[in-house]
């Protein structure tokens, strides 16, 4: 096809007759709002035509959109939330971008792409042992250019801090906070200082941003063959429910998806770890969930997963010990009541200052670990996810509840009323321990917590305070009894965070199929991509920029 007639026209006619709509099915947290089914005879009437379509307005998406637009092609950026930013705007915003940046030079830090490559491929740490070294090499070679790109697009950097994670030298710059308070999503996190400048720059350069639209499929010429021609998307309301309006957007050069990963999709994440059943909530889920939309749509047209061992390396940012008393309870993220998404979050949660102030019990009312374990202690998570003895619930460890008393509240200085706590399933109060147990009503607490068990657990723990020795879990010198009414139970189930494995790409960010062949016209960036288990923003910016440039320059060749 396409030899006798102008290419654009022939492609359009082809699409009308036989394009395939790959389906991003079974997504969402519990619900599946998708109704489009795979139908090889379904014709697509494009509502819009642009050169490059980017899905997801986070770090990878903005880098891709701006980099493409810089090549003078038309770009549309599609985002499911009512605002831009993805989870990048919730983050601490430090980016692994070194290799000899001007900021490093200013600080007198010597660095090189070789040093980055070495640091992030060493075999002695599970965070880099399983990385695809080709992906890391290209990342290392493009960090400086990406840092300059972010600087040119308005990101204002703080002086360089200290080395972190696997870095042998300081190479993790952070932006200054965005100065317009009304546009800052999380005041204690500097992510707005990254994403708002990029939003300004993208809009000024002419990137079209389509908010409140959730991508539903990639449209490919054949079921698992030919080019990716565009996307379908549906408009969603502020609860991510479909409004009934849909849009089909042709992407003449290509589609780049940077949809943020799969952590919120219970079925998808359980491909890697069957323990991660529905009770485990996700960082930033009340802002923009990581639904695996991109992964599912890409797999539906033949894309391969890659680097899956990274997802089960049991280290770093996959899980968090959590905040208390709120659903999406990542320990380092507290939305304020004036956050634009607070209607979805409902509570700020309680940050624990001293884990001596409480005990942690499972749904059966039993302790399971030393409560003073670190916030990223994977031995703690293993215990939390251990079977609790119900033959009807074999996977997952069930909810974890922090149990404390009036004295504990006083020591921590907590305000145990809304909006700090969410009494709708995540925070309970009672005069006695038996009543506390029976007051716990949560959709994840599938059977009642036995009150006598909880009371006996507390009595035993209190005896450890008297004796000074935790005979069960070796908590260091248990200090405080839980005895003074009222008593509290606060949600503290481990919180899922990073996605470390996703769709296979090459060093041009092109998506590869299960045969290792390029899917022409489809690119990926950020946490939806596989092969690099790095926490955070660096890899998303680097590969977003690579994808945007490549799609703009070379996208029509494939």
């Amino acid at each position, binding site marked *: 096809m396409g030899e006798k007639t102008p290419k654009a026209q022939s492609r359009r006619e082809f699409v009308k007759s036989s394009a395939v709509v790959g389906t991003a099915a079974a997504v969402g947290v519990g619900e599946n709002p998708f109704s489009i089914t795979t139908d090889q005879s379904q014709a697509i009437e494009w509502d819009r035509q642009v050169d490059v379509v980017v899905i997801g307005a986070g770090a990878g998406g903005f880098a891709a959109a701006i980099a493409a637009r810089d090549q003078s092609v038309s770009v549309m950026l599609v985002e499911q939330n009512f605002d831009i930013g993805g989870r990048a705007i919730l983050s601490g915003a430090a980016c692994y971008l070194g290799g000899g940046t001007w900021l490093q030079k200013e600080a007198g830090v010597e660095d090189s792409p070789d040093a980055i490559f070495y640091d992030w491929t060493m075999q002695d740490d599970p965070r880099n042992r399983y990385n695809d070294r080709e992906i890391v090499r290209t990342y290392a070679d493009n960090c400086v250019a990406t840092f300059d790109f972010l600087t040119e697009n308005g990101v204002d950097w703080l002086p360089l801090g200290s080395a972190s994670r696997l870095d042998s030298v300081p190479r993790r710059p952070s932006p200054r906070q965005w100065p317009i308070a009304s546009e800052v999503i999380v005041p204690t996190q500097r992510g707005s200082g990254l994403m708002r400048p990029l939003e300004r720059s993208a809009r000024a350069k002419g990137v079209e941003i389509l908010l409140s639209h959730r991508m539903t499929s990639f449209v490919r010429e054949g079921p698992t063959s030919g080019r990716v021609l565009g996307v379908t998307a549906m408009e969603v309301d502020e609860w991510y429910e479909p409004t009934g309006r849909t849009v089909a957007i042709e992407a003449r050069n290509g589609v780049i998806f940077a949809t943020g990963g799969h952590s919120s999709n219970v079925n998808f994440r359980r491909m890697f770890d069957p323990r991660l059943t529905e009770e485990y909530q996700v960082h930033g889920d009340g802002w923009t969930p990581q639904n695996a939309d991109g992964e599912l749509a890409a797999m539906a047209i033949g894309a391969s997963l890659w680097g899956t061992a990274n997802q089960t390396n049991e280290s770093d940012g996959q899980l968090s010990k959590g905040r208390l008393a709120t659903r999406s309870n990542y320990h380092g993220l507290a939305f304020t009541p004036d956050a634009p998404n607070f209607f979805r979050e409902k509570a700020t949660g309680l940050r624990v200052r001293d884990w001596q102030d409480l005990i942690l019990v499972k749904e059966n009312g039993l302790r399971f670990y030393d409560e003073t374990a670190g916030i990223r202690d994977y031995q703690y998570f293993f215990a939390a996810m251990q079977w609790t003895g119900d033959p009807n619930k074999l996977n997952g460890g069930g909810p974890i509840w922090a149990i404390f008393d009036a004295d504990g509240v006083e020591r921590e200085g907590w305000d145990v009323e809304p909006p700090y706590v969410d009494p709708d399933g995540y925070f309970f109060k009672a005069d006695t321990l038996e009543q506390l147990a029976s007051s716990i009503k949560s959709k994840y607490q599938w059977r009642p917590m036995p009150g006598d068990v909880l009371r006996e657990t507390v009595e035993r723990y209190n005896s450890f305070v*008297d004796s000074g020795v935790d005979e069960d879990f070796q908590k260091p010198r248990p200090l405080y009894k839980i005895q003074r009414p009222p008593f509290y139970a606060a949600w503290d189930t481990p919180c899922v965070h990073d996605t470390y494995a996703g769709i296979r790409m090459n060093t041009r960010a092109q998506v590869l199929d299960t045969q290792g062949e390029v899917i022409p016209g489809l690119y990926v960036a950020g946490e939806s991509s596989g092969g690099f288990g790095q926490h955070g923003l660096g890899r998303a910016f680097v590969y977003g920029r690579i994808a945007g440039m490549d799609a703009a320059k070379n996208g029509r060749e494939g």
Partner: protein
Amino acid sequence: MTDRDTVHEPQLEIRRWFASEVAAGAELTFQIRVTCPFGCDLRGTEVLVAAPEGPVLTSELVSCDQGINETGEVTLRAPSEVGDHEWSVLFRPQESKPQASEPPPHAEASLAVPFRTEAHRTSLVIWDVPSPAVMGEPFMVKVGAKCAEECDLRGRKIEVYDGSGDRLTTAEFGDTLWPGSDALYWAEAELVAPPGEGVVSWSAGFPAADLEFPHREASAGFGFATTKPPQHHLTVEVVEIVGGAKGRATVPVPNAEVSLGVYRASTDESGRAILAVTKGSYELSIWKVGYEAPARALEVSKDLAVRVEAADLHLSERSSWEDD
């Protein structure tokens, strides 16, 4: 055959019904639904709830949606005796005034509603238990009880037992509820620590009292350590060493928890805590979030002052990556 030629047989259903086991005397709120398979509007017809000894309540069907007729919310009190019960819901259209001038005939219908009433659950709490307590010395604790149905427990008694189950004392609940609670009744009980050293496990019990409704017995345990009378004062100063080779200085660490065996105290602004202890061999340990200090053995045979160096773990700097 048309729907007017046959007798309509409605279906009865209880909506928002209580569990099959309820507290004796509890208020039960529900709705009764009468569904006519031919979609008839039965509003104005009465339904009856009856116990074996006679009618308990009648209620009128007040809403209809395509043959689904419902009463408003009905509230009844469950029998105050513990045991198995069966109520009936009866639909007797001929005894009610007709809604239409020539209504189609509706059959009578009945629904058996078996349920069981249980004694009220009470639960206990004991707090402000001093630990350690001095052997042979009196001390006070607070004891409270709460009925799950929030019954009035004023004047009721709670008992305290030793580890062998022997009753040590009885305390009577006062008229005031524990602040912030809507039904926690409480009392103070005076106890005397036993003569030996060690960790003691005692319990409190709430007898199944002769209340308006039957209540279950409840008990809860509590414990404390006992020691000899203190003989010496141990002053513990917790400091942090700051500075490098050129100049080292000590900075007090306030609000650190100092533990010496069963004794415990918090450091003040000067980093000091004073513990009144009996002589003996102990392990001295320090706990403060963000600090680390090794535990050490300590022999106390006179008044003593010790300094403990705690290392700052610089968690605030570490959190720059742990929190992102």
